[in-house]
């Protein structure tokens, strides 16, 4: 159905070895099982992991837009009927929102530290396969990330300060997440 709103099949972030950092799939027909998802990711990474100059590929009937930064690869998977530029707008929004939150240090370590925020961002740009928002300023604002809790790593610093006074065990937990 060309007028279907459900045009996003998935949003995936992989690391430099093609391992999953985040993978959210919306199309349960094409990517019903984790096995299918992983197989697709493997194939996708083999086509796109090394070649960062091209930004779009059609794979198994899925239009894949991608963008990389340091050791991360961001993907938006969409229906091949969807306007490629709309999918690109979504990818840019994903990347820009995360980049804002990570203060332009878009790499695996910082992303893992801000994993909860990253999940909220994805939830805020796409709802069950329908594009919800493509303006990264609005997305960041809606995730209610102002001031101190702009990112996980910042939180970590304040926590570390607290743990100095408080229990030593907390410190280990936060150092784990740095």
């Amino acid at each position, binding site marked *: 159905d060309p*007028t279907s709103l459900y045009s996003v099949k998935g949003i995936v972030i992989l690391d430099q070895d093609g391992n999953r950092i985040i993978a959210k799939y919306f199309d349960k027909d094409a990517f019903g099982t984790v096995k299918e998802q992983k197989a697709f990711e493997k194939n996708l990474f083999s086509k796109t992991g090394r070649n960062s100059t091209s930004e779009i590929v059609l794979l198994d*009937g899925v239009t894949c837009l991608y963008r990389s930064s340091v050791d991360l690869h961001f993907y938006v998977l969409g229906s091949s009927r969807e306007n490629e530029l709309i999918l690109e707008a979504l990818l840019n929004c994903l990347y820009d929102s995360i980049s804002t939150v990570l203060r332009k240090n878009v790499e695996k370590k910082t992303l893992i530290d801000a994993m909860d925020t990253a999940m909220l961002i994805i939830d805020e740009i796409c709802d069950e396969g329908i594009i919800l928002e493509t303006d990264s300023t609005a997305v960041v604002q809606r995730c*209610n990330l102002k001031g101190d809790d702009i990112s996980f790593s910042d939180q970590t610093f304040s926590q570390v300060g607290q743990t100095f006074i408080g229990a030593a065990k907390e410190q280990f937990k936060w150092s784990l997440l740095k």
Partner: protein
Amino acid sequence: VNSTMDSSSEMKREKKDEESGGNPYAKLDVTSVLQECRAFNETPVNARKCCIILTKLFHLVQQGDSIGRTEATAAFFGVTKLWQSKDATLRRLVYLAVKVLSTISDDVIIVTSSLTKDMTGKEDAYRAPAIRALCLITDAAMLQTIERYMKQAIVDRNSAVSSAALVSSIHLMRKAGEVVRRWANEVQEAASADGHMVQFHALALLYQIRSNDRLAVNKLVLKFAKGGMRSPFALCYLIRIAKQLIEEDDQADSSLFQFIDSCLRHKSEMVVYEAASAIVSLPNTSPSELAPAISVLQLFCSSPKPSLRFAAVRTLNKVSVKHPQAVTSCNVDLEKLITDANRSIATLAITTLLKTGAESSVERLMKQISSFVSEISDEFKIVVVEAIRALIARYPRKHTVMLPFLANMLRNDGGFEYKREIVDTLIAIVEENPDARLAGLAQLCEFIEDCEHSALATKVLHLLGREAPKTANPHAYIRFVYNRVILETTQVRAAAVSALAKIGAQCPQLRPSIEGLLTNCLLDSEDEVRDRATFYLSVLDMSPSIVNSLVLDTLQSAPAALEKAAAEYVENGEAHTNKFDLKSVPVCAAPAAKKAKTMLAEEAPSAKEKKSAAGATAAAAERLSLIEGLTNGLGPLFKSSPPIPLTDTVNEYTVHCTKHVFASHVILEFECKNTLNDQLLVNVNVQLEDLEGEWNASRQRPISRLPYNEPASIFVLLPFPESGSVQGVLAATLNFKVKDVDPSTGEPESDDTYDDSYVLEELEISVSDSVQPLAKASFGPAWNALEEGDTVEETFALASVNSIHEAIKKVAALLGLAPCERSDIVPEGKSRHVVMMSGVFRGGYEVLAKANVAIDPSDNSIGLNLMIRSSESTVAEILASAIV
């Protein structure tokens, strides 16, 4: 003490992290995370800690780790405790948790009131996500209680809230469409809101609400087309609706097209591209309408943005089939893209050029391809080979250029898939183009002399068995085939033996020498090879009909059906007094042409498409047998037709009829759907009337209740008339009683009913319903084998067709036969053509037909001479009667 223990376990964890590439989320353990979830119950809530635990939980679900229902429910109850925290991030994660856990936990509806409170509360940041979580867990009945709040949210000034309500409503259309429809006024108001996404979501929902009402949709598009839509997303969607309206109705308002055309001048590339791709895919566009769209795409071909180049070249590739002339103007730009760094773009450009290239430019293009073919991956090479295959189909005369090119590719390095694609292409050339047969076979013979893939060697040997006898000098190929018997693996040797036998069966003059070679094979080291040789040696001297059915023909039964029938035969002791009847096994319909799935394939074939015709019949048989007493004594199902609509799709009631044909009965399945939400239909039956009085229903199974939007089927059993007729036209009327019901609940308003009826379109039972198309691998010998029987021969003048190709398609459809040996391909410019067709008639009778179609150049009238042979002469007569 506590802290030391904790730190040691943390150290262990850290060690584990290093193994998983520094990602602590990569190797989470379900049990320990679920244990950590207990922290949700602590007071006061440690927000940071809970955020991490929730994130871990989401990761587990994402990784597909199975969490038991009890554990998930326990975790969910813990999550409900987190509402007391005022931490904003945690609250946002809680909404996400409700959504994530909603499918794996019980009792999620207990958070309804908390979510309702948040959705109507003061905190803007909570309202939007609360609406989305609430709508996900709600059902139609509960939705009514929050209806008032939803209406308010849709028109809320905060665009996040409005979008959340609109998108949730789009999801809800599927489970509670009736409730959502009542919000049309609010949605309409939201469509003129400021927010870009709000406009888009409101427009989409408005369309979904009205999509059953064409006039309303038309009005909607025209209204917004005039202005007021600033959001590029909304405009793209509007273009899509407008395009759909034009596609559905060629009398559509011309201002719809003008609107799409005007979008070509929009400032957003997204909208411009959407408009251009809509225009080029519309049917019946004139060259002047097409030109501006094509020039926009042409411009995009040189954009610095890869996504835009990709979009443009992919659209041009799609159009190139329908409008090759229009795309030719972009050839210069496309040629520049051949060297694009993005290989997807490069490959699309090449294939587009191959599709649009003029016959004269073929040589140049091939030269260009050979300059880079060695540098690209196998996957892209396959795409190129596919394009070459399409090119050969268009310009058969160019085989002199292509064959050496393909042979060269075959000799170079490459994987199995790639080689197979080339071999398939060469085989297609040999089969489709008689002029290229000799050259093609020569290339393939050379290939199997040194071929590392046995699957490809057997494929070529199989082809040699079929095609070599058609050449002037079949004995030239025997050496190539026999060399395989000496040098190859078992699989290939066995295939070579079969190929020898096939050549022997069709060329009597070569039979003695072939029998000599087969005798040599009796000493082979492998059973399979010896058995085949022994079998063929004893069969080759028998009568032509036996040779034909045992050597040249392949098994026609559907393998799954054959297995089932054989198992039933073995189990059923009484049946052993009779011989196993192969004719009672449903035949397998002609395999659908292989749909190539490449990385550039459009949409991956859906599960539905994957099923073959035979699979569909088997599925229908399975379904019918489940209905008690319906198919008793009818024997196996022979064939099921696709569903035929007997009403317009927009009518109050829609009916589709499927004809299930058995040996001497037809079961008509009328699938009925009631699209009126204020009616319940009771005792729905079909009245059939045959004007000739030949067809009479013997039994009928009506639908007792037909509620709104729940399709059900009526079954009517029709015996084939005693006169032996297999055709008929039946007038059909749907009769039923109507009960008025409350649209929101579906409950009847009273016990009153009234009779009503509804006239359906006429239902036609045709000859082709009794015939299963089944292509023969070797038509000639099969035709000769039926020589003893009568040949029914008739001549017709075809008035309603304009070309030979059309005539052949029509005759095959009327007879229900499958064209053999690709004889349905008509070489360009020929004024006469013979097509060979075959199939199986109900009851397992083989039917063959030769249709000689000729066009009279003086007045373009088309004549048809039809010869039909069958093992049963009445069957041949019945088939001839299909053409009137």
